[in-house]
């Protein structure tokens, strides 16, 4: 009950500044993402003929046997909460899978938590670790969510620029230069959204050394692990001494074409996982049971075969797109993972925003301008090639024509 004498004050606040006056300053300070702005532009054009290379998700629908498992479980009336950390069978399967695929072993009872997408895993880790003012190191161009969710937890995101000449890999020198006494967390994302960069074991070793020397914690977002094309994915947690310093975050969205199911997981030191579990328990209770049933099917019964088939198809399309960009005279480093090509449009003399906007309006191809991904992204274009070969071929022709007209 609001006391009478308090009412005028509240009304005044509302009248003077609108709802903004009530908003928490750290929430208000967050900018809408560049992707969002570009999405609005694309939506506004309402053109049916647009080919989009702008979506960061598979063009496959979830394999039927995975969908079927969820449908069947619904028919059986499986509609309840599960244990907070996720169904024990699923955690068991995740542990087994990580061990088999990437040689990292986690105790399903204490070191694995099932989350609502990899997104929640990253958020939980940041919330569990960040004290106000802590610095979070983010190699850029990076996935667009890291900086804003860092800010929401009271931390300060510090971008570390990576370069096309290094295939957008983080180097020990630039990491070292960015570390300050306030640095606490390093967020790694290999294979990378948006550049498709991957890092080898040998390239990660000097990073691990710096992590150790500077007492950092690593959030390793390995959601694109399965989409590694030229060599088997190396999990950062598998490096010597890194398991206890790493929170491995992953999920089912990309490899199993399950974006809408919102299924992910985080693995790490039991002390940290137990705090993340508390936050998870008080905010979302548990991941949805239908998604968990589907995820279990994905990992255990033939889902892995379907995954391999999809990964092979991305690989084929990756070669097509990279070749396409090079043929039309754009520099394009070879993405070794995820499903994005990141060609340079600098040779056209346009900024990435101008290029993307004109490409959309004049050639009806939507792709995301690189500057939205932070430092080092200007001058590049993110093109997701998870689209049919027919569409890709048509998109390449349109981009080529567009560039010829610019000349």
């Amino acid at each position, binding site marked *: 009950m609001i006391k009478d004498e308090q009412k005028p004050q509240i009304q005044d606040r509302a009248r003077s500044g609108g709802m903004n006056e009530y908003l928490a300053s750290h929430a208000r300070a967050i900018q809408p*993402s560049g*992707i969002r702005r*570009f*999405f609005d532009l*694309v*939506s506004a054009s309402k053109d049916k003929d*647009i080919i*989009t290379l*702008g*979506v*960061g*998700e598979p*063009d496959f629908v979830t394999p039927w046997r995975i969908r079927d498992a969820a449908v069947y479980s619904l028919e059986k009336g499986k509609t309840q909460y599960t244990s907070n950390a996720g169904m024990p069978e699923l955690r068991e399967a995740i542990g087994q899978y990580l061990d088999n695929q990437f040689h990292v072993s986690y105790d399903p009872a204490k070191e694995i938590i099932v989350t609502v997408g990899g997104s929640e895993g990253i958020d939980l880790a940041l919330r569990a670790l960040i004290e106000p003012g802590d610095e979070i190191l983010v190699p850029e161009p990076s*996935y*667009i*969510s890291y900086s804003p969710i860092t800010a929401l937890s009271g931390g300060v995101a510090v971008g570390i620029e990576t370069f096309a000449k290094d295939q957008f890999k983080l180097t020990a020198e630039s990491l070292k230069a960015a570390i300050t006494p306030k640095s606490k967390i390093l967020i790694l994302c290999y294979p990378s*959204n948006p550049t498709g960069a991957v890092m080898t074991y040998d390239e990660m070793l000097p990073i691990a050394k710096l992590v150790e020397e500077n007492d950092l914690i690593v959030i390793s977002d390995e959601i694109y692990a399965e989409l590694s094309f030229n060599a088997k994915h190396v999990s950062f947690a598998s490096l010597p001494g890194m398991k206890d310093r790493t929170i491995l975050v992953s999920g089912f969205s990309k490899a199993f074409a399950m974006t809408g199911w919102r299924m992910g997981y985080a693995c790490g030191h039991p002390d940290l996982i137990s705090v993340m579990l508390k936050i998870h328990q008080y905010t979302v209770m548990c991941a949805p049971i239908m998604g968990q049933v589907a995820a279990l099917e994905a990992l255990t019964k033939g889902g892995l075969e379907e995954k391999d088939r999809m990964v092979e198809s991305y690989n*084929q*399309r990756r*070669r*097509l797109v990279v*070749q396409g960009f090079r043929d039309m005279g754009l520099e394009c480093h070879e993405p070794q993972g995820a499903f994005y090509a990141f060609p340079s449009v600098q040779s056209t003399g346009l900024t990435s925003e101008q290029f993307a906007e004109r490409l959309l309006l004049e050639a009806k191809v*939507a792709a*995301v301008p690189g500057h939205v991904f932070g430092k080092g992204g200007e001058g590049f274009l993110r093109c997701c090639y998870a*689209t049919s*070969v*027919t569409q890709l*071929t048509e998109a390449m022709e349109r981009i080529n024509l567009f560039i010829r007209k610019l000349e």
Partner: protein
Amino acid sequence: MNEFKLSILDLLKEDARLTATTIATMLGAEQEDVSAAIAEMEQDHVIVKYATIVNWSKVDDEKVTALIEVECTPERGRGFESIAERVYLYPEVKSVYLMSGAYDLLVEIEGKNLKEVASFVSNKLSTIESVISTKSFFILKKYKQDGIIFEEFEDDHRLLVSP
């Protein structure tokens, strides 16, 4: 069959119009190698034909398709081979399979209308000497053929731009 050829077949089965250059790029191979492999497979009748799967129900030119179970007496020394040959040479016959179970041959027949199919069965098929009996089943609607779902809407339901 080596893996390279299998990958080529997988791609061509999805889209027979893909050029050797595109296939080569997609597989990270040389164009000459792809062309050579395709030529070899054509030569060996691994690739029999490049055809189009048509959903005839969308075309005015209506057709009737029936599946006929045929029971017959195998011929001494040649089994079902010569009967199958007699059957498959008719242009009305789309496919012929030797089956295990309650009957011997499964024959797919296509005709302009019901009457044409019925008359083929009674005048041509049933009168072959070793044929003992036939059972006809007319196909009312095709939902899926050769792995292709006919009514599947390939609309992309994804947003146009996303993280």
